[in-house]
């Protein structure tokens, strides 16, 4: 499998796992958020090594066990994300107010949030809140093919 195909396969897996949105990796944000880990990686890169990180990834991707491991990790991540997004876990008492960016889709379109958006920003505020919600909520992908459905039913999906 070529490097390009590997990427495509990875993208497809990600897309399946996170409900159809095209994944994008923000390297700068990642570096800032995980500064310690990034430094560790940099430190390792100066150690004598016969394989670069990219080569290692490609090697892992070539093997079917590697693919399954990555797919499992992706599914687990997606599971955590989806539980966070749609789960009915109650908000623990004592948690502070959530910034707008951290609101769940249901919170974004709740009566209190939409009313607050109007109170503070008038129709423009309400419009913006609706737009933000729409970005998170949909529309949903509609191109579910019969082939995909059969794959899912066979458990091969």
């Amino acid at each position, binding site marked *: 499998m070529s490097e390009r195909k590997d990427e495509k396969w990875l993208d497809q897996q990600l897309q399946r796992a996170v409900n*159809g*949105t*095209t994944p994008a990796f923000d390297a700068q944000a990642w570096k800032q958020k995980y500064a310690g880990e990034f430094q560790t990686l940099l430190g390792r890169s100066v150690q004598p090594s016969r394989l670069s990180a990219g080569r290692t990834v490609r090697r892992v991707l070539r093997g079917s066990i590697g693919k399954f491991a990555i797919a499992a990790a992706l599914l687990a991540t997606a599971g955590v994300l989806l539980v966070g997004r749609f789960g009915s876990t109650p*908000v623990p*008492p*004592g*948690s*502070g*107010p*959530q*910034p*707008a960016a951290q*609101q769940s*889709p*249901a919170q974004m*379109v*709740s*009566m*209190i949030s*939409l*009313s*607050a958006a*109007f*109170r503070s920003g*008038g*129709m423009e505020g*309400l*419009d913006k809140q*609706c*737009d933000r*919600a*729409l970005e998170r*909520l*949909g*529309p*949903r*992908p*509609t191109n579910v093919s019969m082939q995909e459905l059969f794959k899912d039913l066979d458990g091969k999906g």
Partner: protein
Amino acid sequence: MVAVAGALFACFGPVTPAAALPPDPDNAALLYYQAFLLVPQTDDRALADMLANVADGTIAPNDQVKEYVKKCRDAIDYAVAASALQHCNWGLRYSKGFSAAFPHLAQVRSLSRLVLAEARILAAQGEYRQALERCLATYRLAGHIGDEVLISFLVSVAVDTLADKCVTAILDQMPADTGTLTWLKGQLAATPAATLTASKAMALEREVALETLRPERMADLPGILAEPGGTNVEEIRKAINEPMLARARESYANYMGSALAILSGQTPYVESYAKLRELATQMEQAAAKDPAMKLINAIAPAVTKMYVLQVRYKADFNALQAAVDVYLARTGAGRLPSSLPPAAPRDPYTGAEFKYEPTGNGFVLRCGAKDLEKNEIREYRFATPK
């Protein structure tokens, strides 16, 4: 052959394939929800913006938008079919009080833009009647959003306002046609836009708030009322106790009672506006001293803003209807009338008729008093195509 048919009838009874099919939904919301799902997904933010601009007339329809609208054919068909139904129940969980989710509101705005973008495309192709039908479907959609609670009312108003702009643009370019104008006049008079009010919304809003402020729900209140950047959960938790809640309930009921009396009254715009402003000021001053008032200040609707919007919206819609009367008079006489037709809808700012002025290429309708929030007289310009 008759004998065979008779035997078949005896064995199986009358065969009516149509009767065997389950009926289509009679609840418009079920069709709207399907329409939301049928909108093709796009991550193209620029396209979404372009669509919104076409819908509100900021830009003319271009090939990209036309192509996308074509892909949305099924979603639009479902939306139009839904709008034709009388009954619409969105299935909202009002039992959750202020936490009740209204996900359809965001979707409905987007769907209405799609329908109106198609109206603009049809108008650009000279298919005015069809374009107007799309606008009327949008008015009915706004009616289906309803005015049960204030946010629904607000979204209805936003959707109606977009439809008003689209009808105005179509009238500006449509050649004089008595049949279409007479039909449009009747259709506009029958749209729910004529009957939506903030008062009805406020009545249910009050019930939801009073239910939320019950002592049994005290534990949920901090989570519900904390706002990003506003009062936080801990602050509310510390402040809340039963006597305080009782006080908050009473004050809230009084506040809403006063606001509703002003909104439902027949007092002139300027007077109502001043009274609502005073009420809001009193509430803010009280909130600075009393935690109970601070609590209700977080849930009480912004009634002055609401009232301003309601009157503005009514003025826009009445002006549009009055303009249709002018266009009709023009088709009859072959020229613009010298004054407004007597039965034309009135200016809600004054209760009098709009100020009418023919211009070189059309006419203007003006309100008789200022919109006090914008501090300007609203005016509506209409073109008369040659």
